[in-house]
């Protein structure tokens, strides 16, 4: 089955979170649930080389290219960050590389989780988004050479 476009998935997520209105606790619990369902990253990938350092939470990220698409796998040592990672993977993983690099991830703000992006010191999440895009850009360069 063809993966839905990035913005279609973002809109789906926004709709899901609208159910919570401004129930912050409900949103966090939902994120924790999503994180729990995210397959754990194999231990061999949880190495410093794949570590995106935030001040408090650790995030590991690996990517794998197949033709013009990039697949991501990631994990975190904090439950809420892991939930956000699950959302990012749902939106970006297995998308076309160019689309990933150009993606405007408006869903984070729209579901009320922009605090994660603003506070770089407290969370590896913002760094993770940058890293995902960087890997897409690198994969794009690689693809151009082929």
């Amino acid at each position: 089955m063809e993966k839905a476009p990035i913005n279609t998935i973002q809109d789906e997520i926004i709709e899901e979170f609208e159910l919570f209105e401004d129930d912050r606790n409900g949103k966090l619990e939902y994120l924790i649930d999503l994180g729990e369902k995210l397959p754990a990253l194999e231990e061999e990938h949880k190495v410093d080389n794949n570590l995106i350092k935030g001040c408090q939470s650790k995030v590991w990220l690996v990517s794998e290219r197949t033709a013009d698409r990039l697949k991501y796998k990631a994990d975190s040592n904090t439950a809420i960050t892991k939930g956000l990672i699950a959302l990012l993977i749902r939106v970006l993983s297995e998308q076309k590389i160019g689309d990933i690099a150009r993606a405007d991830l408006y869903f984070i703000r729209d579901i009320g989780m922009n605090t994660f992006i603003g506070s770089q010191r407290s969370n590896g999440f913002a760094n993770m988004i940058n890293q995902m895009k960087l890997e897409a850009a690198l994969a794009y360069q690689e693809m151009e050479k082929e």
Partner: protein
Amino acid sequence: MKTEAATTTTFDIEQIRAQFPVLHQQVNKHQLVYMDNAATTQKPQVVLDALNDYYTGFNSNIHRGVHTLAERATTAFEATRKAAQRFVNAAEPQEIIFTKGCTDGINLVASSFGRSHIKAGDEIIITAMEHHSNIVPWQMLCQERGATLRVVPVTEAGEMQMDAFEQLLSEKTKLVSVVHASNALGTVNPVKEIIQKAHAVGAVVLLDGAQAASHLEVDVQALDADFYVMSGHKVYGPTGTGILYGKRRLLEAMPPYQGGGEMIKEVTFEGTTYNDIPFKFEAGTPNISDIVAFRYALEWVESVGKANIAAHEQQLLQKAHELLQEVPGLRLVGTAREKVSVASFILDGVHPFDVGMMLDARGIAIRTGHHCTQPLMKRLNIEGTARASFAVYNTLEEVGLLAEGLQYIAKRMR
């Protein structure tokens, strides 16, 4: 003017809370419970009014102007120096240097006293529970001067190992810099004893009072402290204010920290003579408005009474210890015999970051992480903690809400 210590029965918490506008708001649809006081305290209305009065009534540059507003601003600014002198019981106002805060004060001493008094082969002693701001300036100084930094270990409970401290002391020790009360654990150090022992080998002692100043009586003369630093924003005052207390003879023997206006007597291109203390260390236009308002914070604390504040906070701490220990999987970090109102903890199987986020969803503000004490966290074999820290305006009900939140998190996430 020290207000007579009132008995605890006259401590009206509602009347206290009414003076802090910021507390009266909803966060994430819950009444705000602010328990990040070790990071910064909220400000009472008198401090906010003072800031407003300064800018609407007499904003002027100080010490130089001949006009009326300049005179009023100068008088107000210097009134804070007198209030700070009284607050730490310094012998004279000239021993109070205004700074941006503790970090600034420590850097001033490291740079000025350090460069003029520390040489190759000398030793500086700190403890393993120091804030990064009481580690890094000394590391930089030691590197520059070829001196050695020695670290007093701490116990599992978070207390300084006094026997190890005594062993580290020698005629090589030139300076001892110790936190009065730990920001990460709440531990109150035996500073009087530390000072006596350091003085016995001829070392000078700096106390980092960032965390202590709002909770404990500070009497630099009774302690015989050589330097004492504190931050205004942790004592209900504005950010960007602080003081460095130093003994006159030490301050006079120290070269200026920064060059500029205010700190000079006479400038020619051949050379400059420096102003007397405290102005020698206050180059440039200072943070006048905030320092003017800082006085009102100090007087506010005095009017409530340190003893009253401490009694109330100890009650909160005790209750927190009691209720938190009932939370499944919760372990208190920092169980020193003497503590200020800081409750640091970890919840087994739940990252502190998640604890902080989940509490925030309930309107409860705490801090999570290493609290700028990475070596201490390493010593305790933890990555970080969740930390609730209480101030005069916190209530027993709020402590109950914290415990309730943690019970919920423990049940949901473990």
